[in-house]
């Protein structure tokens, strides 16, 4: 299903910039994040935007590895980097897991959560990216940066 933007347009005519599948390991996350950062550098994406995309991708991949794959290195996570004719960038991370209740993620800035050692990943992604959509019950995340 095409993503719908706040301006009413849809994600037609997307161009693939990279499409990789990786084993569900933390080492593979670093490699994929580095690859995407290099691609964004080649596209002359500004440093601030590169950082925000890279961190969001890292968080999404970490969620996929830990929650979607249960840290099982025999399972695969797919990460696609695409752009549209307006230069907007989308990253799609897909894992084989059952998904999760993304609307149940607590606000990490609440006083009672400040010292909790988990639960910030999805919040960070939503702060760093311009549009975030979950598909397939949460086993796929589409993150847009304008």
């Amino acid at each position: 299903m095409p993503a719908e933007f706040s301006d009413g347009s849809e994600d037609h005519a997307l161009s693939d910039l990279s499409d990789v599948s990786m084993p569900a390991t933390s080492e593979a996350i670093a490699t994929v994040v580095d690859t995407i950062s290099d691609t964004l550098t080649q596209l002359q994406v500004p440093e601030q935007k590169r950082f925000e995309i890279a961190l969001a991708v890292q968080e999404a991949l970490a969620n996929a590895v830990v929650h979607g794959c249960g840290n099982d290195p025999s399972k695969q996570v797919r990460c696609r980097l695409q752009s549209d004719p307006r230069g907007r960038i989308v990253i799609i991370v897909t894992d084989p897991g059952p998904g999760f209740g993304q609307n149940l993620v607590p606000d990490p800035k609440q006083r009672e959560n400040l010292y909790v050692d988990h639960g910030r990943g999805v919040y960070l992604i939503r702060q760093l990216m311009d549009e975030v959509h979950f598909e397939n019950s949460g086993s796929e995340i589409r993150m847009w940066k304008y």
Partner: protein
Amino acid sequence: MGTAVDGLRQTFEESIANGDIYFVLNLAEVVMIDSSGIGLLVRFLASTKQRGGNIKLVQPNKFAVQTLRLVGVLNLFEIFDDDDAAADSFN
């Protein structure tokens, strides 16, 4: 993330087991801090504060500061320009 966070976790656990409660953490070479790193920092900050100690951060880059601010934990930490100033702040 991954081995970096695991290594820091082990260092913290061993140090706290040895009775250390004052920590200076130099972040000058940390390019990016993610949610797992933040979770580790706040967990051990709570642990050291419960023992009367603290964790002071030195030279986090602008992206690390931005990330800590985004999740609302920047104000939990004191930040310094160099290790000596951070260490002196415990006196």
